Protein backbone atom coordinates (compact mmCIF):
# COMPACT_ATOMS: atom_id res chain seq x y z
CA UNK A 1 0.00 0.00 0.00
CA UNK A 2 0.98 3.59 -0.53
CA UNK A 3 3.28 4.84 2.24
CA UNK A 4 1.35 8.10 2.65
CA UNK A 5 -1.92 6.27 3.08
CA UNK A 6 -0.31 3.90 5.56
CA UNK A 7 0.80 6.86 7.66
CA UNK A 8 -2.66 8.41 7.61
CA UNK A 9 -4.29 5.12 8.54
CA UNK A 10 -1.81 4.45 11.32
CA UNK A 11 -3.04 7.58 13.11
CA UNK A 12 -6.62 6.27 13.00
CA UNK A 13 -5.86 2.89 14.53
CA UNK A 14 -6.34 2.15 18.20
CA UNK A 15 -3.13 1.57 20.06
CA UNK A 16 -4.47 -1.53 21.69
CA UNK A 17 -7.29 -2.85 19.53
CA UNK A 18 -9.78 -4.99 21.44
CA UNK A 19 -9.07 -8.69 21.11
CA UNK A 20 -12.01 -10.48 19.58
CA UNK A 21 -12.28 -13.76 17.74
CA UNK A 22 -14.91 -15.46 15.66
CA UNK A 23 -17.09 -17.53 17.98
CA UNK A 24 -16.81 -15.15 20.91
CA UNK A 25 -19.98 -14.01 22.63
CA UNK A 26 -19.43 -10.35 23.33
CA UNK A 27 -21.10 -7.31 24.83
CA UNK A 28 -20.24 -4.21 22.85
CA UNK A 29 -20.58 -0.82 24.49
CA UNK A 30 -21.05 2.00 22.03
CA UNK A 31 -21.36 5.71 22.66
CA UNK A 32 -24.44 7.51 21.45
CA UNK A 33 -24.56 11.28 21.27
CA UNK A 34 -27.90 12.82 22.22
CA UNK A 35 -27.56 16.54 21.88
CA UNK A 36 -24.79 17.27 24.31
CA UNK A 37 -25.38 14.19 26.42
CA UNK A 38 -23.52 10.96 25.95
CA UNK A 39 -25.22 7.65 26.49
CA UNK A 40 -24.00 4.08 26.28
CA UNK A 41 -25.74 1.43 24.29
CA UNK A 42 -25.04 -2.25 24.56
CA UNK A 43 -25.26 -4.92 21.93
CA UNK A 44 -24.75 -8.49 22.96
CA UNK A 45 -24.28 -11.40 20.61
CA UNK A 46 -22.03 -13.83 18.85
CA UNK A 47 -19.24 -12.76 16.53
CA UNK A 48 -19.86 -14.56 13.26
CA UNK A 49 -17.32 -12.85 11.01
CA UNK A 50 -14.26 -10.64 11.08
CA UNK A 51 -13.27 -9.01 7.83
CA UNK A 52 -11.12 -6.22 6.42
CA UNK A 53 -7.76 -4.93 7.44
CA UNK A 54 -6.36 -1.74 8.94
CA UNK A 55 -8.91 0.99 9.62
CA UNK A 56 -11.53 -0.96 7.77
CA UNK A 57 -11.39 -4.02 10.02
CA UNK A 58 -14.90 -4.96 11.08
CA UNK A 59 -16.59 -7.62 13.14
CA UNK A 60 -20.15 -8.79 12.75
CA UNK A 61 -22.23 -9.57 15.82
CA UNK A 62 -25.37 -11.70 15.59
CA UNK A 63 -28.01 -12.00 18.21
CA UNK A 64 -31.52 -13.42 18.26
CA UNK A 65 -34.07 -10.98 19.55
CA UNK A 66 -37.71 -12.08 19.89
CA UNK A 67 -37.10 -14.92 17.48
CA UNK A 68 -35.60 -12.68 14.81
CA UNK A 69 -31.93 -12.67 13.98
CA UNK A 70 -30.24 -9.28 14.16
CA UNK A 71 -26.77 -8.62 12.88
CA UNK A 72 -24.71 -5.54 13.40
CA UNK A 73 -21.31 -4.74 12.00
CA UNK A 74 -18.85 -2.67 14.00
CA UNK A 75 -15.61 -1.06 12.96
CA UNK A 76 -12.99 -2.44 15.30
CA UNK A 77 -11.08 0.84 15.46
CA UNK A 78 -14.09 3.11 15.79
CA UNK A 79 -13.80 5.62 18.65
CA UNK A 80 -17.54 5.07 19.18
CA UNK A 81 -16.82 1.67 20.65
CA UNK A 82 -15.99 2.21 24.28
CA UNK A 83 -15.57 -1.37 25.40
CA UNK A 84 -15.93 -4.91 24.20
CA UNK A 85 -16.46 -7.51 26.87
CA UNK A 86 -15.89 -11.13 25.93
CA UNK A 87 -18.45 -13.19 27.80
CA UNK A 88 -17.74 -16.61 26.32
CA UNK A 89 -15.42 -18.06 23.73
CA UNK A 90 -16.73 -20.71 21.37
CA UNK A 91 -14.89 -23.39 19.48
CA UNK A 92 -15.19 -22.90 15.75
CA UNK A 93 -13.92 -24.77 12.74
CA UNK A 94 -14.49 -21.98 10.21
CA UNK A 95 -13.71 -18.29 9.89
CA UNK A 96 -17.25 -17.20 9.01
CA UNK A 97 -20.20 -18.62 10.93
CA UNK A 98 -22.83 -17.75 8.35
CA UNK A 99 -24.30 -21.24 8.67
CA UNK A 100 -25.78 -20.15 11.98
CA UNK A 101 -28.27 -18.00 10.09
CA UNK A 102 -30.19 -21.04 8.92
CA UNK A 103 -30.42 -22.43 12.44
CA UNK A 104 -33.41 -21.89 14.64
CA UNK A 105 -33.83 -21.87 18.40
CA UNK A 106 -31.19 -22.65 20.92
CA UNK A 107 -28.96 -24.27 18.32
CA UNK A 108 -28.58 -20.94 16.61
CA UNK A 109 -26.17 -19.51 19.08
CA UNK A 110 -24.87 -22.60 20.75
CA UNK A 111 -21.27 -23.33 20.09
CA UNK A 112 -18.99 -25.61 21.97
CA UNK A 113 -17.45 -23.28 24.44
CA UNK A 114 -13.77 -23.51 24.64
CA UNK A 115 -13.26 -23.74 28.30
CA UNK A 116 -9.75 -24.38 27.25
CA UNK A 117 -9.50 -21.05 25.47
CA UNK A 118 -10.87 -19.08 28.34
CA UNK A 119 -8.89 -21.18 30.70
CA UNK A 120 -5.88 -21.09 28.45
CA UNK A 121 -6.08 -17.32 28.46
CA UNK A 122 -6.38 -17.24 32.19
CA UNK A 123 -3.73 -19.87 32.73
CA UNK A 124 -1.44 -18.04 30.33
CA UNK A 125 -1.93 -14.91 32.37
CA UNK A 126 -1.37 -16.88 35.53
CA UNK A 127 1.73 -18.44 34.04
CA UNK A 128 2.97 -15.01 33.11
CA UNK A 129 2.30 -13.83 36.63
CA UNK A 130 4.04 -16.84 38.11
CA UNK A 131 6.98 -16.12 35.85
CA UNK A 132 7.02 -12.53 36.96
CA UNK A 133 6.80 -13.65 40.54
CA UNK A 134 9.51 -16.18 39.95
CA UNK A 135 11.65 -13.43 38.53
CA UNK A 136 10.83 -11.24 41.45
CA UNK A 137 11.54 -13.94 44.04
CA UNK A 138 15.23 -14.56 43.48
CA UNK A 139 15.83 -10.90 44.09
CA UNK A 140 13.61 -10.99 47.15
CA UNK A 141 15.13 -14.03 48.80
CA UNK A 142 18.70 -12.86 49.19
CA UNK A 143 17.35 -9.73 50.79
CA UNK A 144 15.34 -11.65 53.32
CA UNK A 145 18.26 -13.88 54.00
CA UNK A 146 20.47 -10.88 54.36
CA UNK A 147 17.93 -9.36 56.66
CA UNK A 148 17.73 -12.60 58.64
CA UNK A 149 21.45 -12.66 58.84
CA UNK A 150 21.41 -9.11 60.04
CA UNK A 151 18.92 -10.03 62.70
Amino acid at each position, binding site marked *: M*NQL*IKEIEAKQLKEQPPEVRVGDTVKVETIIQEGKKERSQYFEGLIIAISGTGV*NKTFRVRRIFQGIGIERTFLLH*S*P*KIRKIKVIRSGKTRRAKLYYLRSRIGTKATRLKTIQNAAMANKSAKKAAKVKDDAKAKPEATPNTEAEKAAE
Partner: protein
Amino acid sequence: MDQKELGLLATKEGMTQIFDENGFVIPVTVIKIAENVVTDIKTADRDGYTSVQIGAFETKEKLLNKPEIGKFKKNGTKLFKKLIEFRTEEAADMAIGDEVNTEEFFKDLEKVNITGVSVGKGFQGFVKAHNGHIGRRSHGSKSKRQIGSLGAGTTPSRVLPGKRMPTMLGNEVVTIEKVKVVSYDAEKRVLLVRGPVPGKAGAELKIKAFGAKAWNHKNKRKLALEAA
Protein backbone atom coordinates in the same frame (compact mmCIF):
# COMPACT_ATOMS: atom_id res chain seq x y z
CA MET B 1 -2.15 39.11 -5.13
CA ASP B 2 -4.12 36.34 -3.48
CA GLN B 3 -2.64 32.88 -3.83
CA LYS B 4 -6.17 31.53 -4.11
CA GLU B 5 -6.42 33.04 -7.58
CA LEU B 6 -3.91 30.43 -8.67
CA GLY B 7 -4.30 26.70 -8.84
CA LEU B 8 -2.13 23.75 -7.91
CA LEU B 9 -0.93 20.62 -9.62
CA ALA B 10 -1.03 17.43 -7.60
CA THR B 11 -1.13 13.65 -7.77
CA LYS B 12 -3.82 11.35 -6.52
CA GLU B 13 -2.37 8.85 -4.06
CA GLY B 14 -5.43 6.76 -3.34
CA MET B 15 -8.36 6.49 -0.98
CA THR B 16 -8.85 5.55 2.64
CA GLN B 17 -11.13 6.45 5.50
CA ILE B 18 -10.70 8.44 8.69
CA PHE B 19 -12.77 9.06 11.80
CA ASP B 20 -13.99 12.61 12.41
CA GLU B 21 -14.19 14.22 15.85
CA ASN B 22 -17.63 12.69 16.45
CA GLY B 23 -16.40 9.22 15.60
CA PHE B 24 -18.10 9.01 12.21
CA VAL B 25 -16.26 7.65 9.21
CA ILE B 26 -15.35 10.00 6.37
CA PRO B 27 -14.21 8.49 3.07
CA VAL B 28 -11.22 10.51 1.90
CA THR B 29 -8.96 10.78 -1.12
CA VAL B 30 -5.30 11.37 -0.36
CA ILE B 31 -3.73 13.95 -2.67
CA LYS B 32 -0.06 14.88 -2.71
CA ILE B 33 0.47 18.48 -3.74
CA ALA B 34 3.41 18.82 -6.11
CA GLU B 35 6.04 21.52 -5.87
CA ASN B 36 4.41 24.31 -7.84
CA VAL B 37 6.94 26.83 -9.14
CA VAL B 38 6.29 30.02 -11.07
CA THR B 39 7.90 29.59 -14.48
CA ASP B 40 6.64 32.73 -16.20
CA ILE B 41 4.70 35.88 -15.47
CA LYS B 42 2.69 37.44 -18.25
CA THR B 43 2.06 41.15 -18.21
CA ALA B 44 -0.34 43.39 -20.06
CA ASP B 45 2.56 45.22 -21.77
CA ARG B 46 4.27 42.17 -23.13
CA ASP B 47 1.51 39.64 -23.62
CA GLY B 48 -1.70 41.65 -23.66
CA TYR B 49 -3.02 39.99 -20.52
CA THR B 50 -1.88 39.21 -17.00
CA SER B 51 -1.31 35.69 -15.78
CA VAL B 52 0.99 33.39 -13.86
CA GLN B 53 2.45 30.29 -15.42
CA ILE B 54 3.16 27.45 -13.05
CA GLY B 55 5.22 24.33 -13.57
CA ALA B 56 5.22 21.08 -11.65
CA PHE B 57 6.54 17.51 -11.78
CA GLU B 58 10.27 17.66 -12.40
CA THR B 59 11.50 15.82 -15.45
CA LYS B 60 14.65 14.95 -17.42
CA GLU B 61 16.15 16.97 -20.21
CA LYS B 62 15.83 14.17 -22.75
CA LEU B 63 12.07 14.11 -22.35
CA LEU B 64 11.64 17.73 -23.44
CA ASN B 65 12.18 19.42 -26.77
CA LYS B 66 14.64 22.22 -27.46
CA PRO B 67 12.25 25.20 -27.22
CA GLU B 68 10.97 23.94 -23.86
CA ILE B 69 14.46 23.40 -22.46
CA GLY B 70 15.50 26.81 -23.77
CA LYS B 71 12.70 28.50 -21.92
CA PHE B 72 13.41 26.78 -18.63
CA LYS B 73 17.12 27.54 -18.91
CA LYS B 74 16.50 31.19 -19.76
CA ASN B 75 14.36 31.57 -16.64
CA GLY B 76 16.75 29.50 -14.56
CA THR B 77 14.11 27.15 -13.18
CA LYS B 78 14.04 23.37 -12.93
CA LEU B 79 12.67 21.36 -15.83
CA PHE B 80 9.00 20.57 -15.48
CA LYS B 81 6.75 18.09 -17.20
CA LYS B 82 3.60 20.08 -16.80
CA LEU B 83 2.93 23.76 -17.27
CA ILE B 84 -0.29 25.51 -16.44
CA GLU B 85 -1.43 29.10 -16.62
CA PHE B 86 -3.78 31.01 -14.37
CA ARG B 87 -5.19 34.41 -15.31
CA THR B 88 -4.93 37.04 -12.62
CA GLU B 89 -6.74 40.30 -12.18
CA GLU B 90 -3.65 42.44 -11.76
CA ALA B 91 -0.02 41.94 -12.57
CA ALA B 92 1.24 39.29 -10.20
CA ASP B 93 3.56 40.32 -7.37
CA MET B 94 5.48 37.09 -7.68
CA ALA B 95 8.82 36.39 -9.29
CA ILE B 96 9.93 33.59 -11.55
CA GLY B 97 11.21 30.74 -9.44
CA ASP B 98 8.88 31.47 -6.52
CA GLU B 99 6.91 28.60 -5.12
CA VAL B 100 3.17 28.84 -4.66
CA ASN B 101 2.40 29.12 -0.96
CA THR B 102 0.21 26.08 -0.41
CA GLU B 103 -0.38 26.90 3.23
CA GLU B 104 -1.90 30.21 2.25
CA PHE B 105 -3.80 28.56 -0.57
CA PHE B 106 -5.58 26.12 1.74
CA LYS B 107 -6.06 28.57 4.59
CA ASP B 108 -9.80 28.91 5.35
CA LEU B 109 -10.51 27.03 2.16
CA GLU B 110 -13.50 24.74 2.52
CA LYS B 111 -14.20 23.65 -1.01
CA VAL B 112 -12.13 23.06 -4.11
CA ASN B 113 -12.69 22.17 -7.74
CA ILE B 114 -10.64 19.24 -8.95
CA THR B 115 -9.87 18.50 -12.58
CA GLY B 116 -8.45 15.22 -13.78
CA VAL B 117 -8.71 12.52 -16.40
CA SER B 118 -11.33 9.92 -15.56
CA VAL B 119 -10.60 6.19 -15.54
CA GLY B 120 -10.72 4.81 -19.09
CA LYS B 121 -13.38 2.14 -19.54
CA GLY B 122 -12.67 1.28 -23.18
CA PHE B 123 -15.31 0.69 -25.84
CA GLN B 124 -18.53 0.05 -23.99
CA GLY B 125 -21.98 -1.11 -25.02
CA PHE B 126 -25.14 0.93 -24.98
CA VAL B 127 -26.28 -0.35 -21.60
CA LYS B 128 -23.16 0.70 -19.70
CA ALA B 129 -22.36 3.80 -21.73
CA HIS B 130 -25.83 5.37 -21.74
CA ASN B 131 -27.60 3.60 -18.90
CA GLY B 132 -29.89 1.70 -21.26
CA HIS B 133 -32.41 -0.97 -20.33
CA ILE B 134 -31.54 -4.63 -20.72
CA GLY B 135 -33.71 -7.16 -22.47
CA ARG B 136 -35.03 -10.45 -21.20
CA ARG B 137 -32.35 -13.00 -20.42
CA SER B 138 -34.51 -16.13 -20.92
CA HIS B 139 -37.47 -17.33 -23.07
CA GLY B 140 -35.42 -17.15 -26.28
CA SER B 141 -34.69 -13.45 -25.91
CA LYS B 142 -32.51 -12.05 -28.66
CA SER B 143 -32.02 -8.65 -27.09
CA LYS B 144 -30.10 -9.21 -23.88
CA ARG B 145 -27.96 -6.08 -23.98
CA GLN B 146 -28.89 -4.79 -27.40
CA ILE B 147 -29.27 -1.15 -28.27
CA GLY B 148 -32.80 -1.66 -29.70
CA SER B 149 -34.30 0.36 -32.49
CA LEU B 150 -32.17 3.02 -34.14
CA GLY B 151 -35.22 4.99 -35.32
CA ALA B 152 -38.13 4.98 -37.77
CA GLY B 153 -38.05 3.11 -41.11
CA THR B 154 -38.73 4.45 -44.59
CA THR B 155 -39.06 7.98 -43.28
CA PRO B 156 -36.44 9.31 -42.62
CA SER B 157 -34.61 6.17 -43.86
CA ARG B 158 -31.45 7.17 -42.02
CA VAL B 159 -30.18 7.26 -38.48
CA LEU B 160 -30.57 10.71 -37.01
CA PRO B 161 -27.39 12.45 -35.89
CA GLY B 162 -26.72 12.27 -32.17
CA LYS B 163 -28.23 8.81 -31.79
CA ARG B 164 -26.64 7.28 -28.69
CA MET B 165 -24.65 4.18 -29.53
CA PRO B 166 -21.87 2.02 -28.08
CA THR B 167 -18.85 4.23 -27.58
CA MET B 168 -15.52 4.81 -25.89
CA LEU B 169 -16.18 5.56 -22.25
CA GLY B 170 -14.08 7.43 -19.69
CA ASN B 171 -10.54 8.71 -20.23
CA GLU B 172 -11.76 12.27 -20.57
CA VAL B 173 -11.09 15.47 -18.68
CA VAL B 174 -13.57 15.84 -15.85
CA THR B 175 -13.96 18.60 -13.28
CA ILE B 176 -15.75 17.91 -10.05
CA GLU B 177 -16.84 20.97 -8.16
CA LYS B 178 -17.30 21.83 -4.49
CA VAL B 179 -15.15 18.99 -3.17
CA LYS B 180 -14.93 19.34 0.60
CA VAL B 181 -11.46 19.81 2.07
CA VAL B 182 -11.01 17.63 5.15
CA SER B 183 -7.48 18.63 6.11
CA TYR B 184 -4.20 19.90 4.73
CA ASP B 185 -0.74 19.14 6.07
CA ALA B 186 1.56 21.87 4.74
CA GLU B 187 4.70 20.10 5.89
CA LYS B 188 3.98 16.83 4.15
CA ARG B 189 2.00 18.57 1.38
CA VAL B 190 -0.84 16.11 1.87
CA LEU B 191 -4.41 17.14 1.14
CA LEU B 192 -7.40 15.09 2.22
CA VAL B 193 -10.69 15.69 0.46
CA ARG B 194 -14.01 14.03 1.05
CA GLY B 195 -15.05 11.45 -1.51
CA PRO B 196 -13.57 10.35 -4.81
CA VAL B 197 -11.70 12.33 -7.48
CA PRO B 198 -11.17 11.44 -11.16
CA GLY B 199 -8.52 8.93 -12.22
CA LYS B 200 -6.56 6.16 -10.60
CA ALA B 201 -3.82 6.43 -8.00
CA GLY B 202 -0.89 8.32 -9.48
CA ALA B 203 -3.11 10.43 -11.73
CA GLU B 204 -2.27 14.10 -12.15
CA LEU B 205 -4.84 16.55 -10.85
CA LYS B 206 -5.45 20.27 -11.05
CA ILE B 207 -6.85 21.90 -7.94
CA LYS B 208 -8.54 25.30 -7.87
CA ALA B 209 -10.25 27.07 -5.02
CA PHE B 210 -14.02 26.88 -5.35
CA GLY B 211 -15.43 30.37 -5.78
CA ALA B 212 -12.15 31.88 -6.99
CA LYS B 213 -12.77 34.27 -9.84
CA ALA B 214 -12.59 32.41 -13.08
CA TRP B 215 -10.91 34.79 -15.46
CA ASN B 216 -12.60 33.46 -18.47
CA HIS B 217 -14.39 35.22 -21.25
CA LYS B 218 -17.82 35.12 -19.70
CA ASN B 219 -16.80 36.52 -16.36
CA LYS B 220 -14.80 39.30 -17.95
CA ARG B 221 -17.79 40.43 -19.98
CA LYS B 222 -20.04 40.27 -16.95
CA LEU B 223 -17.64 42.36 -14.92
CA ALA B 224 -17.30 44.87 -17.74
CA LEU B 225 -21.09 45.20 -17.88
CA GLU B 226 -21.27 45.71 -14.13
CA ALA B 227 -18.62 48.40 -14.30
CA ALA B 228 -20.41 50.23 -17.10
